[in-house]
């Protein structure tokens, strides 16, 4: 039962209030591409154009490039120092349910076994304010991937569009605490709940792209050695990194050093299993051929990740389909994976 709401025209005031406690991130096109960026203090024009960002919100916790540590070579040898931990309290405003679920999926890796200090220090201090979709894209298929356009499961607050206002669903203790401290919110009216239910249903029905993932883990296992299938599937892929770099559940990174004179930095930056050199060793490369890399991507998301974490590493955000230069479509591929009877070994 949500009992608070906010008018769309008051969003700037709301974000301004929150800015006092948090660094607020909101959708923005200022950089030239739709991404979550530090809120400039006044713009709420995104409410008109925002469907989803190109750069996924994971960039807030796993930035495109990050300095891991600095080192200096002195007379006494090397000296290593980490930059100060980024423990800013971030508030991400406008996170879509697909991206929120994706962040929860990526969290599993960064928490598993060795804890990743860079990712987790940013993540633990972040508040996610979700924004339920009203206008899903034709490439969206979240409803087939364990979530839906207004799913509140992985955010602290979920805002549901009920016309000129957003109904505020308080999801976690963090979210409730934030709302308790927030002034000038309106009380929800008696029929707002019904409006929200209608809004949710409309958004749900607008997701027309569907994918049946029943048994996909086993089908992929059975087809692993079906070279002919994978070669055909990979034929039009051009091995760029768009689908993986901009995927909210992808997290692969590269580590590189740079040193100028006596000072240096170790960086980590986004990497992609689609790149030919991703697995290259000096004497051999197990994924030299394109079809092996395409197979890796599909299997990692729909077979290996479920084997380890019991969840498919895909939330149906559709970015890969929209942005792929050749319109390679994961939903079409998953549908076409042969099952045991058809797979050729």
């Amino acid at each position, binding site marked *: 039962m949500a009992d608070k709401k906010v008018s769309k025209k008051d969003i700037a005031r709301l974000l301004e209030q929150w800015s006092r406690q948090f660094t607020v991130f909101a959708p923005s096109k200022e950089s030239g591409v739709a991404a979550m960026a530090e809120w400039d203090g006044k713009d709420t024009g995104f409410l008109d154009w925002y469907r989803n960002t190109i750069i996924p919100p994971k960039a807030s916790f796993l930035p495109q490039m990050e300095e891991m540590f600095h080192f200096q070579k002195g007379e006494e040898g090397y000296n290593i120092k980490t930059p100060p931990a980024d423990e800013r309290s971030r508030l991400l405003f406008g996170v879509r349910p697909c991206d929120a679920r994706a962040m929860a999926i990526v969290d599993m890796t960064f928490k598993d076994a*060795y804890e990743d200090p860079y990712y987790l220090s940013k993540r633990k201090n972040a508040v996610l304010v979700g924004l339920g979709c009203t206008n899903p894209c034709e490439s969206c298929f979240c409803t087939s991937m364990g979530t839906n356009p207004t799913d509140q499961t992985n955010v602290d607050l979920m805002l549901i569009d009920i016309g000129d206002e957003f109904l505020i669903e308080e999801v976690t203790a963090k979210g409730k605490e934030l709302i308790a401290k927030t002034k000038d919110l309106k009380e929800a009216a008696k029929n707002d709940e019904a409006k929200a239910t209608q809004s949710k249903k409309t958004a749900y029905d607008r997701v027309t792209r569907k994918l049946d993932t029943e048994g996909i883990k086993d089908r992929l296992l059975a087809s692993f050695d079906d070279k002919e299938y994978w070669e055909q599937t990979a034929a039009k892929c051009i091995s760029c990194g768009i689908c993986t770099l901009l995927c909210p559940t992808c997290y692969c990174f*590269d580590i590189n*050093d740079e040193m100028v004179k006596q000072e240096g930095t170790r960086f980590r930056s986004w990497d992609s*299993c689609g790149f030919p050199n991703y*697995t290259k060793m000096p004497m051999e490369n197990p994924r030299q051929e394109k079809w092996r890399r395409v197979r890796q991507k599909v299997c990692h998301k729909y077979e290996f990740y479920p084997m380890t974490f019991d969840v498919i590493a895909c939330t149906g955000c559709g970015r890969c389909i929209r942005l792929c230069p050749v319109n390679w479509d994961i939903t079409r591929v998953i549908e076409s994976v042969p099952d045991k009877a058809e797979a050729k070994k």
Partner: protein
Amino acid sequence: MTVNDTRFFAQGNVYLPHIAVIEKIVEETPGVRTYHFNFKDEKLRKEFTFQSGQFGQYSVLGTGEATFCISSSPTRPDHLEFAVQKVGRVTNALSRLGVGAEIGFRGPYGNSFPLESLKGKNLVFVGGGIGLAPLRSLIWNVIDNRDKYKKIDIVYGARTPVDLCFKYDLESWGKDKTINMVTTVDRGDDSWKGKVGVVPKILEEIAPPARDTVAIVCGPPIMIRFTFPVLEKLGFKPEQMLTTLEKRMKCGIGKCGRCNIGNLYVCKDGPVFSYAQIKDFVSSEY
């Protein structure tokens, strides 16, 4: 899945290397060197432990990091060793370092050879080229606890006599009467008096029986590819065949995504695997 072993984190951060100093360099072959090293920090030097099979991420700070197993045995902890083949950017940079130079070390990472399950068994070590490095750690470990293990066969080969690594070990093991040491080369030279033939073929000739035996295989992928079928023919079940895999690695802790074979990460769930664990995806390797 390994637990968060924070024992040897530098400054509480898993990605930070410790500084270590190179104490000795051994030229194994024209392209392969063994480095002996120790941590700069006294306390770490005393406290550091690892198990046979584990690896470290070694940095030449400013150039990069590379993965090498720890080739010394934990039963001889006065110093640590790793073996390097000069093949790329980081290994070339390493080869330019001399005694006294500083390197970075993160680790020990990965799982280890399952010593408990090897006790009371016959052991067949099958190695090729620099692949003897991880096996070496285990072999000395076993020798230092000899009475806990039964028969030991070591079948080791390289392309030519000059490419044989750890020649001093081969000599010691050859002199040990409790070990059947078989060395071979793909191609002999004028002075070579030993066996000639690729390792899988020599292994087939030696034909160690499979009962109560575990085979531990490490070498170039092509050698491994032909060794598994030989072992299968000799009656070894997939659980009786162990190997250590090698992959391009960056984080070494199962996060950066690249070293996987199927759903297993070589850095975190390996590098030691039984053939049973990887047989569904082994076609992607060989």
